[in-house]
């Protein structure tokens, strides 16, 4: 980071950075004064309903529309054939290899459907109810085709997910430390190891389950087409719509109003968005589509869904020699925006905080007849962290070593930073010793180990296990050059504007489009701190491509470390501008001015002029220095030079009821190092929510399909999401080693909890019952799975 102007920044104690400000946006959000897309009502607006395939793989032989078209209130019923000339193919922005294969993906299927829920027709009607009623009247004939639902079976190509493809394999992506020059050969390393532990781990399929279902309203009237959408990515969406549909980008405006959560699930260009736009254009009237909760669970993109074939080698002293990772990653039936890149994002994280010399990663991206997968909180990194942390525990067991001791032997010492990793990244800072020591103390590690032994010796019904997860992740996506090297279509910069109004109020425009993270508050704190204006006087504008013209939106824990830095850089430019004017107004030299608490003072005098005085002087422009434009606005684009690397140590005390298999989190301690914190309360919220989601993968959530390809867990009765009573009281703490890749030293916290907690929980469950002969349980660790694992261990003589 070289563009900062440290000199302009007040050096006194910061009043805003580090303050737990209540969130500005909450009053609006919790009192129903929010503007969600589905609240939007436009004059003459029509409503859409989708007709979806009940089959996971079938050829469409006939679509009978007569009855539906004649139904009351119906304006039009369209099929894929009707839209064939305009709809194009949904975009994949991340061709991970030059030979990546992908089927065409029309928004409305034309000949073949490849997952249950794929859209085959769309009804446009006066009301949502009329549209739904008419959708029931569309009669579609299908010839069923064989389905392939299981990832390992799909890999064999025995059944093809698409008749248009010769193989289910989309791409194979390999990283080899010997070839990359970042390390040695994995074959040699494993051959020379005293022990090699081999395991196959499973990442179940997850559904993002955000609170607000996806919704889109398109207004085609006027010069521009305006799309309101419950999306995380208004800017990327606008570019992609332009490229996919051939509409000039300047004729498109995308607005993400209040968006009720996303978790990556709204980082997509969806068929429904394309269809709503095409319908609105065709009808010349505003159109709305809001999905039902059932549709949201069924066809919103899913996450995880990988088979991880792992090999880890070590010396008998417990020094890890190398890691081999061989993945099968379920793409689902189509490639979404970054579907193919998600497992690759994990490739750089399997080595985690450890410094072994040899590493090989291979990922096979595979098609199945399920809905597409794509980004879901953590996107690739939770998978990597889970696998390495599970393997470290397996290795510890193999070597009969305490899992924390094994980790300590292998992690990068704080004195060794910056550290070039075997996966090719450079970790700038970190202190794993400090975070672990703090976690161990808060957890009472030794006390709980003693209690565990007591229960084991007593043969207690409720056994106790301790789960360890020491993790790091890469966030702050991303240096544009790195993304380019990975063949991702876009960059990773972020843009901001700071505009000073005549009264001294400040408008901050950010390209990082928030959907629940609290940007309005945090960005206000950043700018209030930097410009010395009251927090209340800062207004943050975002999520509308006409207001915030440039941006790359919110995902990958990037907002503060990338978007926030753009805001600070823009604020610094405002100060530079103001200084010239202040010097002119006070008839002083710029070099003699100090900027503190929102005012310029002539050093050594009491002559000063406040920020708002300058703002008004600029507005009136009666007395500007020669050649200086009368405005205090600025903009900045920040492109990070490196990722940031939050890390931490999470410890979970897990109780397992050996009679019922019921699992309970008795105690959860997490010590996170996310660098410098702007708003501790927001951070705490992100940590809590992240933990809940990670724990939920370990214990509760799973998208389950039957053999025919129907989603069995199609409602919240069967897709289990925990509520507050199901989650423990978290003990959270932080250590702080500032990042060096941005001027604030912040690292990002949006995904840390999710990434770290899943392996802590599963390791804890296994630690509780490993002495009874259980060595693995697939996630989620449901009571029934735990009980069956115990029974199986018993019957195979695992009990000691």
């Amino acid at each position, binding site marked *: 980071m070289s563009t900062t102007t440290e000199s302009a920044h007040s050096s006194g104690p910061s009043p805003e950075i580090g303050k737990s400000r209540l969130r500005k946006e909450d009053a609006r959000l919790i009192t129903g004064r929010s503007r969600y897309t589905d609240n939007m009502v436009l004059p003459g607006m029509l409503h859409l309903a989708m007709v979806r395939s009940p089959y996971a793989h079938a050829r469409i032989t006939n679509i009978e529309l007569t009855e539906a078209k004649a139904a009351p209130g119906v304006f039009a019923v369209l099929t894929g054939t009707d839209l064939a000339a305009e709809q194009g193919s949904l975009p994949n922005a991340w061709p991970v290899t030059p030979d990546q294969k992908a089927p065409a993906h029309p928004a409305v299927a034309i000949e073949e459907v490849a997952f249950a829920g794929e859209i085959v027709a769309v009804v446009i009607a006066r009301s949502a109810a009329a549209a739904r009623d008419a959708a029931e009247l569309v009669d579609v004939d299908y010839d069923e085709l064989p389905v392939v639902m299981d990832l390992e079976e799909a890999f064999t190509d025995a059944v093809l997910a698409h008749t248009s493809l010769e193989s289910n394999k989309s791409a194979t992506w390999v990283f080899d430390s010997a070839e990359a020059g970042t390390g040695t050969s994995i074959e040699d390393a494993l051959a020379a190891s005293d022990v090699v532990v081999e395991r196959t781990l499973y990442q179940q399929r997850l559904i993002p389950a955000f609170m607000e279902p996806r919704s889109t309203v398109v207004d085609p009237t006027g010069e521009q087409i305006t799309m309101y959408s419950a999306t995380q990515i208004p800017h990327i969406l606008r570019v992609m719509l332009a490229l996919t549909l051939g509409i000039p980008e300047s004729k498109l405006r995308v607005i993400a109003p209040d968006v009720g959560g996303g978790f990556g699930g709204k980082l997509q260009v969806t068929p429904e968005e394309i269809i709503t736009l095409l319908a609105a254009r065709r009808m010349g009237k505003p159109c709305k589509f809001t999905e039902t909760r059932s549709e949201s669970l069924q066809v919103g993109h899913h996450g995880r869904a990988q088979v991880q074939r792992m090999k880890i080698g070590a010396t008998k002293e417990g020094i890890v020699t190398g890691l081999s990772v061989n993945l099968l990653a379920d793409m689902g039936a189509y490639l979404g925006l970054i579907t193919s890149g998600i497992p690759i994002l994990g490739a750089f994280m399997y080595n985690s905080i450890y410094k072994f010399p040899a590493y090989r990663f291979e990922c096979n991206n595979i098609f199945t007849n399920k809905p597409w997968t794509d980004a879901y909180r953590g996107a690739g990194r939770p998978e990597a962290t889970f696998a390495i942390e599970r393997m470290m525990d397996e290795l510890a067991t193999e070597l009969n070593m305490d899992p924390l001791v094994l980790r300590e032997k292998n992690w990068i010492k704080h004195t060794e930073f910056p550290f070039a990793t075997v996966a090719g990244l450079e970790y700038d800072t970190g202190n794993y010793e400090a975070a672990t020591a703090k976690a161990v103390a808060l957890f009472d590690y030794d006390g709980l180990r003693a209690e565990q032994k007591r229960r084991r010796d007593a043969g207690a019904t409720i056994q106790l296990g301790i789960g360890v997860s020491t993790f790091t992740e890469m966030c702050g996506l991303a240096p544009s050059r790195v993304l380019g090297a990975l063949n991702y279509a876009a960059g990773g910069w972020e843009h901001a504007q700071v505009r000073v109004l005549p009264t001294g109020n400040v408008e901050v425009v950010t390209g990082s489009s928030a959907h629940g993270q609290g940007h309005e508050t945090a960005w206000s704190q950043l700018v209030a701190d930097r410009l010395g204006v009251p927090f209340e006087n800062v207004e943050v504008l975002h999520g509308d491509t006409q207001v915030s013209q440039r941006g790359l939106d919110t995902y990958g824990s990037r907002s503060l470390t990338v978007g926030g830095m753009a805001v600070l850089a823009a604020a610094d430019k405002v100060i530079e501008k103001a200084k010239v004017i202040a010097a002119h107004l006070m008839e002083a030299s710029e070099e003699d001015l100090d900027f503190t608490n929102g005012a310029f003072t002539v050093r050594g005098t009491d002559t000063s002029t406040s920020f708002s005085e300058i703002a008004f002087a600029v507005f009136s422009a009666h007395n500007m220095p020669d050649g200086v434009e009368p405005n205090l606005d600025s903009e900045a684009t920040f492109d990070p030079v490196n990722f940031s690397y939050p890390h931490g140590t999470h410890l979970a005390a897990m109780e397992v009821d050996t009679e019922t298999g019921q699992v309970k989190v008795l105690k959860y301690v997490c010590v996170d190092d996310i660098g410098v914190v702007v708003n501790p309360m927001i951070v705490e919220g992100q940590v809590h929510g992240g933990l809940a989601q990670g724990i939920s993968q370990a214990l509760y959530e799973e998208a389950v399909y039957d053999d025919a390809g129907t989603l069995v867990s199609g409602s919240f009765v069967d897709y289990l999401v*925990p*509520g507050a009573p199901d989650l423990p009281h978290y003990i959270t703490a932080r250590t702080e080693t500032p990042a060096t890749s941005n001027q604030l030293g912040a690292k990002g916290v949006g995904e840390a909890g999710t990434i770290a907690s899943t392996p802590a929980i599963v390791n804890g469950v296994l630690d509780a019952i490993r002495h009874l002969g259980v060595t693995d349980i697939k996630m989620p660790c*449901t009571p029934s799975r735990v*009980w069956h694992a115990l029974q199986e261990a018993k019957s195979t003589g695992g009990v000691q």
Partner: protein
Amino acid sequence: MIPSAFDYAAPTTVEEALALLAGADASGDDVKLLAGGQSLIPVMKLRLADPSLVVDLGRIPGLSGITDNGSSLTIGAMTPHHVMATDPLIAAHVPLLSQAAATVADPQVRHRGTFGGALVHADPAGDMPAPALAMDAVFNITGPAGPRSVEAAGFFQGYFTTAVEEGEILTSITVPKFDGWGSHYEKFTRVAQQWSIVAVAALVRVEGGVIAEARLGLTNMASTPLRASATEAALAGCAVDAEAIAAACAHAAEGTDPASDLNGDAAYRRHLATVVARRAVLAAVGLQGTRG
């Protein structure tokens, strides 16, 4: 989640409601009674049910509330779960019903969902049927042919099927008082707010340190609630002792036919029944926390 179009009627007397049912029956229309709507509305929104007429029982006075008959209580069918969970008469004389009602869903659902609705809906995983069965409740039904009463043993007839015929209304439920009995509803779930994976309703009468009589209702161990008869028999005369109770409860799954689903297969449920039954009985006799 938009239901098909339907007509709506809100009668103010039972007779009016019966007439609406009869009229719909005569014209071949599909009609549904609406109580709390917590089961009916979801299936309508999913279009798994599309009645052409919905008759709301919510405006009929007298269908809700609890009457003390001396040795029994009569509970109006429209009494919400929340009232079941908090009413002092219920708590004093049939606490099993308060205990079970308190485990139903969340406060919102408990304020709208009704005792009668839950019984007529007869979801195998629903929490109110097993306690009603264990208590030998009597179901007071009225229909075109006038009122009739059905014993609990004959009320639950199959998967989502009860003795309430089309055209009939369940008006109230009469339950004997269980003064002096210990009771407990033990519900096994994965998360706090969930339908029962398995649950056991236990009523136990202890006399002179010995279990004199036990009644056990099983939730979700078949398409209808069941009595754990073998365990009931084994418990009679059994000492109030954790080991003896465990031995008796080992029979809890006898005669059951549980389903397999995402929460567990039948074998797991059979095993759970024995554990959950033991825990229910131990709690009912005040030996809670004894886990062996």
